[in-house]
């Protein structure tokens, strides 16, 4: 068990592409850290640099206080679980699990005892004499984990271990991995592109985009206080809605209408005079059916009419999709972001954005019907369209809840009607994000 410290780690490939760009990350002893990002963001490369399967172009990797840049994988005493498990097909499950011990020349009696112990923990008892080819996907996964835990390594490294399993098994194995990690208390680095895994498993989550570390924090921090557009869009499902907006003083012009920002938020933005273009980020659950909001709450947000395209009723929640007219200007930047996020957040052909609202399932809104929606203005995020930076975060550290905790709701006006003049109802426009 050990801490892992990455200092200015960079990976440059032979053809000049930079896969990992100047990453600094401290992983404490016993911590469970997730590396997450869309495919091609360098997260697997970073993991392979930690384990020693990729050379480090520049920077330093320290494991347990030792610089390991030039050590071979076998000298780093790490255990890795590969995406395709990489079990040795010619060896029985027992010998697969025993392999690291055999390499370390552990005496036979101890090998047997430790393999049996690992098999007991993973409930592999009856499978020990089988070959990996005769096992199911979930069983292979457990054998791969058995091979990792049997030698008590300095750290566990997982490279998208659940991506080959079906959805149900994935859920089971996810809790199993969490349980094992808690039990052994071993430092763990886990690579995934699945944000559910990232949010549920990790003590801390590191979000990568194009090799650059965007933000590191607890799942709660990432969700509540994303530092930029990318993290905001990547974390959360369905993802955050992005709308172009203009900021004039403490008045925010949204495509749905104009609204006054709460004072504290406005103060933090410290805008000068004149209008400024921003991108507003609103999570689906920060919309609500205006009819279901208590009278005294209404004042904290803005109410506006919307024409609902599509409704998805899930029992415990209800998703309402509605189009919003947005200026052509910001579309290019948002489209690029959508590409990076591997989602169809913005329809670039038209000047319309699709917005998702997560409403109370008791809501009576109907498809193709007009609904009064309420937007919690206290929870809105504003981003700089150029840098993508989150302008609404308190300066300094991004601590949990700070952005929304102690806000005083000063009377923010309901959205004015002028916004929806250019927002004709869409007959059968059933386009959905994702």
């Amino acid at each position, binding site marked *: 068990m050990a801490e892992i410290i990455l200092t200015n780690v960079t990976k440059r490939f032979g053809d000049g592409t930079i896969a990992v760009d100047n990453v600094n990350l401290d992983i404490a002893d016993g911590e469970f850290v997730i590396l997450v990002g869309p495919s091609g963001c360098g997260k697997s490369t970073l993991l392979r640099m930690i*384990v020693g399967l990729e050379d480090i172009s520049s920077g330093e990797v320290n494991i347990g206080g030792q610089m390991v840049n030039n050590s071979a994988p076998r000298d780093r005493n*790490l*255990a890795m679980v*590969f995406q395709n498990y990489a079990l040795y*097909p*010619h060896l029985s499950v027992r010998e697969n699990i025993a392999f690291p011990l055999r*390499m370390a020349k552990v005496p036979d009696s101890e090998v047997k005892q430790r393999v049996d112990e690992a098999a007991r923990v993973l409930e592999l008892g009856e499978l020990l004499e089988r070959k990996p080819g005769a096992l199911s996907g979930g069983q292979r996964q457990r054998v791969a984990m058995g091979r990792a835990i049997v030698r008590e390594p300095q750290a566990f490294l997982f490279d998208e271990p659940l991506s080959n399993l079906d959805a149900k098994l994935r859920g089971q194995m996810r809790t199993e991995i969490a349980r094992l990690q808690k039990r052994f208390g071993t430092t763990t680095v886990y690579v995934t592109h699945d944000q559910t895994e990232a949010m549920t498993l990790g003590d801390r989550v590191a979000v990568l985009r194009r090799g650059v570390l965007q933000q590191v924090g607890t799942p709660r921090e990432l969700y509540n206080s994303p530092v930029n557009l990318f993290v905001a869009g990547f974390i959360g499902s369905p993802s955050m809605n992005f709308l172009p907006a203009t900021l004039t003083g403490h008045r925010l012009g949204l495509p749905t209408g104009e609204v006054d920002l709460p004072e504290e938020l406005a103060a933090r933005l410290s805008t000068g005079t004149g209008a400024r273009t921003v991108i507003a980020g609103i999570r689906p659950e920060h919309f609500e059916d205006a009819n279901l909001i208590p009278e005294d709450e209404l004042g904290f947000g803005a109410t506006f009419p919307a024409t609902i395209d599509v409704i998805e009723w899930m029992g415990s929640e209800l998703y309402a999709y509605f189009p919003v007219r947005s200026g052509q200007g910001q579309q290019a930047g948002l489209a690029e972001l959508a590409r990076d996020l591997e989602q169809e957040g913005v329809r670039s052909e038209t000047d319309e954005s699709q917005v998702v609202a997560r409403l109370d399932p008791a809501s009576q809104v109907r498809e193709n019907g007009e609904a009064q929606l309420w937007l919690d203005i206290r929870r809105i995020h504003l981003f700089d369209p150029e840098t993508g930076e989150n302008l609404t975060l308190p300066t300094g550290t991004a601590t949990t809840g700070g952005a929304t905790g102690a806000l005083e709701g000063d009377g923010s006006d309901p959205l004015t009607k002028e916004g929806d003049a250019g927002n004709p109802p869409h007959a059968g426009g059933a386009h959905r994000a994702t």
Partner: protein
Amino acid sequence: MSSQTSTVTTHSSRAGGRAGAGRPQVAPDRRRIEFKWIVLTIFIIVYALIPLAWILSLSFKSPAAVTDGKLIPTDPSLENYRTIFTTGVFVRPLINSIGITIISTVIAVALATLAAYAIARLNFPGKRLVLTAALAIAMFPPISIVGPLFNMWRSLGLYDTWPGLIIPYMTFALPMSIWVLSAFFREIPWELEQAAGVDGATPFQAFRKVIVPLAAPGVFTAAILVFFFAWNDFVFAITLTSTDRSRTVPAALNFFTGASQFQQPTGAISAAAIIVTIPIILLVLAFQRRIVAGLTAGAVKG
């Protein structure tokens, strides 16, 4: 077969008339096709094995009966076998054949395994060149180089020695083995070696404990191909040897003589031919599955 079909028919006709009605027409059709296949197969087997059966028959005949034209010897004897093993014209070449072939096979397969592994795993400049050259050598007709080799070997002192044959056998067998083996290595996921490395294995340990066992069918295939090539070779053996010191069986058969100069050594040659065929048959039977797996694996899965 026919009884099976009829039970099926009765069952289905009992279950439902319509389903059963179609069956009897299908079965004879299938039987006719099967029959054609059986006839064709028997024809091919007979065509291929008659010469072998003839040699076998000759080897049991006395010199006088060789020309009697009967497939089944009237008076079978082991006389010919006794002759070749007692007169000494055959024993020494047999030892040469076994020794030279085994040494060539072991060295060629060992070298080919390492070379093929490098070709499958590493990206080095000239990799394509190596593979192309290997293919070119494999297609090179041996007869075109035996002349120069004869002169070279004489001046180098390799003429009529074991190494004098082992070297050309290895050289011609290596390309073939490299191609077969690199196809095998390419199919083994790279992650396995990486996993072995993370698990604490040195690169050589990973190669020996993970890669070689997985490529075993390929190694066997390559070994058998080399063995056949060296065992059956005649061109090099007849050109690069002059005495029993290193002459192998295919070449030695040429120098068999009868009891007198007017007598053909047909029976003895046949007996020797049967003896040298035995190892090949045993090898094929022993490794039948592996060879088939080996020959198809590279092609189908790759």
